[in-house]
């Protein structure tokens, strides 16, 4: 099962390596990991997308909690939540494909953020599967480069992760 786990941790040097080291040492999967400081500069927030049996996920949350730098851990998959990922795609846009590419970006609510006479750079946000769907919808051979941030997640409504 896929799980999306949010972690609040001390914004200190080496905190990220403690988390990534834990995952590699214990053989847990990381599908994606994003991290940045929060509005409180002493804290970082991390979103980890992982997969495993219920037993493995239970161990992951326990082991994360055990890290001295970790303040709080929440498995967002336990309740309603929203997740978003940002992707930048550079695509070839010449001739008749130029208009088609613009149309596809519009359909997926993407924005063209850089333009040359030969290519577009499109910014897209959404769930991972929406971004996948966009890549599948356009002409594969037109894709020059992609970069994705990995998912960030937040609980719905009054589900709040705070110290």
């Amino acid at each position, binding site marked *: 099962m896929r799980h999306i786990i949010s972690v609040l941790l001390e914004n200190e040097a*080496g905190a990220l390596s403690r988390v990534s080291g834990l995952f590699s040492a214990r053989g847990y999967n990381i599908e994606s990991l994003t991290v940045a400081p929060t509005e409180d500069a002493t804290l970082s927030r991390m979103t980890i997308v992982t997969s495993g049996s219920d037993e493995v996920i239970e161990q992951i949350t326990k082991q994360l909690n055990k890290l001295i730098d970790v303040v709080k851990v929440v498995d967002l998959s336990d309740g309603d939540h929203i997740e978003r990922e940002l992707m930048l795609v550079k695509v070839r846009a010449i001739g008749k494909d130029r208009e088609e590419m613009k149309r596809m970006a519009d359909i997926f609510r993407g924005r063209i953020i850089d333009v040359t006479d030969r290519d577009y750079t499109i910014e897209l946000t959404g769930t991972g599967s929406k971004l996948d769907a966009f890549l599948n919808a356009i002409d594969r051979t037109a894709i020059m480069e992609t970069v994705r941030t990995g998912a960030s997640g937040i609980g719905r409504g009054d589900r709040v992760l705070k110290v």
Partner: protein
Amino acid sequence: MQLTGAEIVIRCLQEEGVEHVFGYPGGAVLFIYDELFKQSKVKHILVRHEQGAVHAADGYARSTGKVGVSLVTSGPGVTNAVTGIATAYMDSVPVVIIAGQVPTHAIGQDAFQECDTVGITRPCVKHNFLVKDVRDIASTIKKAFYIAATGRPGPVVVDIPKDITAQKTEFIYPDKVVMRSYNPVVKGHAGQIKKAIQMLMSAKRPMIYAGGGVILGGASAELTKLVKFLGFPCTNTLMGLGGYPATDPQSVGMLGMHGTYEANMAMQHCDVLIAIGARFDDRVIGNPAHFFEQPRKIIHVDIDPSSISKRVRVDIPVVGDVRDVLHEMIRQLQATKDKPDQAALKAWWTQIKAWRGRDCLKYDRSSKVIKPQFVIEKLYEITKGEAFVTSDVGQHQMWAAQFYKFDKPRRWINSGGLGTMGVGLPYAMGVQLAHPKATVACVTGEASIQMCIQELSTCKQYRLPIKIVNLNNRYMGMVRQWQQFFHGNRYAESYMDALPDFVKLAEAYGHVGIHVEKPADVEPALKEAFARKKDLVFLNFVTDQTENVFPMVPGGKGLSEMILV
């Protein structure tokens, strides 16, 4: 008043009440050593290799319950210490390791004796710090001691660059530590404890399985009280020996790969199991699938939530300090009118006594060569069961665990989790320094002892009257045993050729050596050795080369599938 970083380090150690620091100097810690030199409260023990420093601090901690302290230099000082740190980590021993680092401006420049200490030690510490500001030294060391000793204990490394130890600041030692990210649970959940009591009362075939957590948590008295109150059988893990008195009739001895027949059979066939400060590791329960062929309910008391339901699904988890939880259990038990089913318990004991009748630890007592088990039995008799016994890793370790009956906690000091050969002698140093008047024996083998043999020199310097009991069978015995059983008698590289003359070796280091070849000489030799109160005596027992440790649960097999003699 402004103090240098180095002065602050020493002042912190004094504030923590540290009596001994085990270490080895080097470039990056010269300022710290200079400050050590100028004072007399903290005594430095100069080892001969940094591995020995951490093991000695670890042994000191295991035998006292206090935090052990080690001081090493950057680069190779740290990498040499890593085996010691990992050993302490696997057995949850509180140790603080202060490491020198190259100056801050040189970090990352591949400087002389530089290594990424925080990176290298990260997977084998409870936590580690790199101090980059002299104003942080005091609070960091305070945190290090607090983290090492509380919750599930463990080693903490404090890495201090050389320039930081030379800079000055005001010294303020914090009274207490507040960390929003670290608040170990102490009290067990009262509702869970109540449920656990009800489950224990419903048992027909109960079993108490107590591990190293009982010793680390100082809960031996509470465990003993609980076991006595319930009248249930109790088994101890290798790490838990002494947590419940081995000579008590309710003790069924050690369990696991080389546990007793009765302990393993009772473990397999019980219907309610309470695990206390133990972690169901692979050397304890054997094949987990086989373990679960028998249905049983499990209660698990542990301070570390991640130990619960890690290898074995449990029915009633109780997270908390073992002593606190047991105290509450006893209180609730005394308050309840319920009693365990006495008829069922009687039948269960009849079964256990039948298993005990199998006499699984028997060995050939008429042998013309020295049987290693015989040496341990005599060691037990001559020391009246009162010695601190350290061991290395291998067959001798298992025989010591099986044949020396530990009635008190913190008397049996060995590397259970990491299984580090070479710990025995430095452990004995730490124990002897912590308990100068006590009898300390190091049970070892000719392979293990050579892994930290250089520490014989440290023993001479500090006049440590350790008794080394070397069970010399000219083989890496446990490796040979596995090769005999599972690799068609092909003894690949397990023969110890070109051994030194251990008597001369001991003498070369300024100690006493005794060579023993005949069974009849075992007792007199041990008596002579232990009568020499001021000398380190190296007893070299030439033992049976082909003796094996029984019972044995082969790897991948179930607990009740033991190979017996």
